[in-house]
């Protein structure tokens, strides 16, 4: 299966029902807030709202839709914490835009591509968050490439499984 699309090939664009559009991000936020109570390292390595953002953005293949999805999920994630609202919002807006733009050009239906895309966007997300938090909000941040790569790998593995699960909710336009 080709990884990139040529001009002659049809790009599949998907949409989702309203309950899925609202329920899946809400469930991701809920799990992200609840699971660390039982498994404290979960919040350190995993970012479920980011995976959901990437999935919706890649499936819809519409940059505006992708950035709005990322923005809304990111802002909601910000509201659960106590840091200024907008840190996750900005980072996920960029990821949503990037993932949907990439979805137009790449075949993001196979596991390998999904793994690499998730890994890449995890690092983009971390870099944007770090930059904004450090240089705009003046928060003390420590960034480690080793940790970033490990967390990126962990999210990519979980992401590939999650995307195949969420594929069941896709509806052809």
């Amino acid at each position, binding site marked *: 299966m080709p990884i990139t699309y040529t001009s002659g090939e049809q790009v599949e664009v998907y949409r989702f029902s309203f309950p899925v559009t609202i329920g899946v991000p809400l469930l991701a936020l809920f799990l992200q*807030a609840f699971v660390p109570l039982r498994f404290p390292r979960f919040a*350190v390595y995993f970012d479920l709202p980011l995976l959901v953002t990437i999935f919706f953005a890649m499936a819809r293949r519409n940059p505006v839709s992708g950035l709005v999805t990322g923005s809304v999920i990111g802002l909601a994630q910000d509201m659960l914490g106590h840091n200024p609202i907008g840190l996750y919002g900005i980072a996920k807006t960029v990821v949503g835009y990037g993932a949907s733009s990439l979805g137009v050009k790449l075949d993001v239906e196979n596991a390998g591509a999904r793994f690499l895309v998730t890994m890449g966007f995890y690092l983009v997300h971390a870099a944007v968050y770090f930059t904004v938090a450090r240089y705009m909000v003046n928060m003390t941040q420590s960034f480690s490439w080793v940790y970033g790569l490990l967390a990126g790998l962990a999210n990519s593995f979980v992401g590939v499984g999650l995307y195949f699960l969420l594929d069941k909710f896709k509806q052809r336009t």
Partner: protein
Amino acid sequence: MESVLGRYRNLIILVGVLFLQVLGLATQVKRTGNDEEHTRLIRIWVVGAVTPFERGLVWMQNGTGNLWHNYFYLRGVRAENRQLKLQIEQMRLEQVRLSEDAAQARRLQTLLAFKEQFISRTVAAQVIGSSGSDLSRIVYIDKGENAGIRKDMAVITSDGVVGKVLLVYPSVAQVLVINDQSSGVGALLEKTRLQGVLRGTANGEVALERVMSDEQVAVGEPVLTSGGDQIFPKGLPVGTVNNVSAGKDLFLNIKVKPAADLSKLEEVLVLTEKRERESSAEETGHVRAADILAQRLPSVPDKPTVDPKAAGGAGTKPAASDTPKPPATALSPKKPSIALDEATGSKPKTTNTNPLTTAPTTPKPKQFAPATPPPSQTPAQSPDAGTAPQ
């Protein structure tokens, strides 16, 4: 112009959305002080949407756990009960020793007219959620404004300090944990009495700052709250010194291991009310180790209260000022110590009212003696039968 807008429409929207968020962020950063109050209305939507699920899940989890532990899984409960009883006995003895020390401390504090903060009311709450991010170390509890929780109230567990209430909603509250970067707790080292500020670090550790590098700080030394922050009462356990190294700007870099397990919080106490009052030497009654030990003896029955007049006939000379108050603690023995002394016919121990010359009383073997042994009790059964009136 239109073609340019159409061509770069997505990019323009992206820049617009990012610009709006940066603008919002800048507004929040520019504000100082109670920024949480300004964003409270926005945050409440998401908190309101997520916390009911968390609350429900915690409730279900607790219900299932309780059913299993309270009805099905009762193996070893008898042995555990016996062990706990023994532990309680030991703790009661320890408490007596500590209360003696506390009484002495109070007398000295009274002399100096020290003011103390007392925890007068707490609300127990269940931890139901977190921020979901390691960059914002907060937890949500299932009690809020409706339960009397207010901003800046201290949150603790039986092990030690957890954090303070940051935002309060009607039925939930947000607690800033002490290992968050923006947290700050006034703390002191128990032995050296050195004061500092306890802060969270970027990687979730807790550090004691502002302790000069020429001070001697030992690893393992307990850290307590100093009360200087006006949030936590003085003397609550915070943790122990884990690592000491030279820091920058003439200060030590002291890492503290929190006493409470901050990564696995389940139930917490919110200090909803604390009172400040001058300590009084008369607050603690005398509870002697002898009384506790006397209660432990299976052969010693509860002693009837002896009428001072009747006891006077046996040769005692009780004075009104000598009568100690019964202890107010729940662990107090059933009879105050004076009853034993009166009943034994010996002269009651006089309480020295001068705080400067008062020394802590130490239990003596003869105080083990019960007042009147029961008819069935032989002298050999009594630990100190010789002192009891026959």
